[in-house]
């Protein structure tokens, strides 16, 4: 009789422990991440037509935070991260695998990330983590047409963080309750490079072509067009992140 009671007590204790662990534990989550563009290559600006024929972009790393303002100081420990740094064709609407999200279950409300150039706390300056694209965050090229005149342009963006330990892009508000079931799904990041490029100043491009006496210009950091695209990539036109079925 006493032996049966002992076994029952032990069984109950184990059952209680198991239930307790199930209620209080957090689960690891692993899910693939893809990048895609919109497939759009042309945009109009004040009667001019801007065409984009190349948009190669480097993404990563990225950190997903429980707070609504992902930044170095308000997110010392991320809920999830994508440590991969990958290049992809931002003009292609076909999702391209760019890495793996690793995290724990819970709700993230914002994220921060780099465009391939990071400034670690231990480093004296920003550094590119991928040799592709010559160490740049993104390389764009295309043309602009005005009244039959066509001028080619190119643009190599360096989205360097402003200081050590800070990301290039911060506080991007996206909310998702991360759960183990996400392992069978995929996170797709969508960028709109034509939206970024639409912010160039076409007057600046034609003026630069006139000064150079050539129908091809390089838009460097000293140009308003470069600065406008950089602001779009790092602040005003961040990518979107959506969970869905695996491509």
């Amino acid at each position, binding site marked *: 009789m006493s032996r049966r009671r002992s076994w029952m007590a032990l069984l109950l204790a184990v059952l209680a422990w198991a239930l307790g662990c199930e209620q209080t534990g957090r689960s690891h989550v692993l899910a693939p991440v893809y990048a895609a563009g919109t497939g759009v290559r042309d945009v109009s600006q004040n009667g001019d037509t801007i065409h984009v024929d190349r948009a190669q972009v480097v993404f990563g790393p990225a950190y997903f935070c429980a*707070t*609504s*303002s*992902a*930044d*170095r*100081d*308000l997110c010392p420990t991320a809920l999830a991260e994508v440590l991969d740094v990958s290049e992809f064709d931002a003009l292609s609407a076909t999702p391209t695998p760019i890495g793996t999200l690793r995290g724990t279950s819970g709700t993230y409300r914002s994220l921060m990330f780099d465009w391939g150039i990071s400034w670690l706390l231990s480093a004296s300056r920003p550094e590119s983590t991928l040799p592709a694209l010559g160490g740049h965050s993104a390389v764009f090229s295309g043309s602009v047409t005005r009244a039959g005149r066509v001028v080619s342009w190119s643009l190599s963006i360096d989205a*360097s*963080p*402003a*200081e050590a330990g*800070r*990301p*290039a*892009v*911060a*506080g991007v508000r996206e909310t998702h309750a991360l759960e183990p079931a996400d392992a069978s799904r995929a996170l797709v990041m969508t960028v709109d490079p034509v939206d970024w490029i639409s*912010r160039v100043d076409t007057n600046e491009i034609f003026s630069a072509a006139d000064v150079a006496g050539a129908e091809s210009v390089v838009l460097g*950091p000293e140009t*308003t*067009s470069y*600065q*406008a695209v*950089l*602001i*779009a990539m*790092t*602040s*005003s*036109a961040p990518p979107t992140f959506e969970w869905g079925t695996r491509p």
Partner: protein
Amino acid sequence: MQRSLIQSLLLLVFLTSCSSATGVGDVSVRLGAEDSITLGLTAGSAAEDVVDGWDVTYSKFIVAVGGISLRQQSTGTQFDSLGVHIVDLMALPATGFELARFAGVPAARYDVFNWQIAIASASATREASVAEADAARMIADGCTYLIAGELTNATGQTCSPGTACVDARTVRFDLCIPAATTFGPCNDPDGAAGVAVSAGGVTNAEATLHGDHLFFNLFPLGDEATIVRRAQWLANSDTGHDGIVTRAELESLQAAQLFTSPNYSLAGAPTVDGHGIETGWDWVRAQARTQGHFQGEGECPWN
């Protein structure tokens, strides 16, 4: 013996259960101004100086403020004060301006403290520090702030984009800014959430406004220790070269012309009317949405 033991245990349980009911107190929520408002900013190389040669002085720093909320998440106990006050932070008493007072608050930590910068309206209370004409302007133009002052630099210049630089020793500004914001949940400077209310007295909580965010070179979401302060962009915004910067001038200038990398970063900036920062005016409105703090330097996420 057994009865006295039981009685002692019961008394202990009673005392323990009653220890959570520790009385009530009052909470006084006051509005405070950082020195950067009342004393301005100084050109120099020290940590909080303006690095590009300009002194900044405010003559008016009027704000429509209110919407105080104090809440304990675990119990849902909440205290609200919806009234909006139009106040000039240049004319605050040393102890600050009382925005709200909650009486009979059970002593405990209220971990959610929110406050708001609101669009000035006819239902707001105009405090004595604010001229009728200024309040009327804020109400007519739908502003949350009316900020006026000047930049001074003995060797200053205005270098507007696309034009030659001209000498400018003094550049004034008088801006009615719409930047409605909810700040919170706020943490105090030590990182503790909200307000710990003590029993039997008055607990003070300060909603603090800072006056240097317009001159920040980026948008910190936390620590401001590494911020660089610059004012040349505002001097450059005087495209009319008449010594005063207007909203129209700021709207005419692209952010890409005024706030260039590597001196500036717009990462983490608030949106303005649902879009990112595109003009100098957007920058002013966005930075105005970040300048609310708690108990001095405590952080408040903005929404």
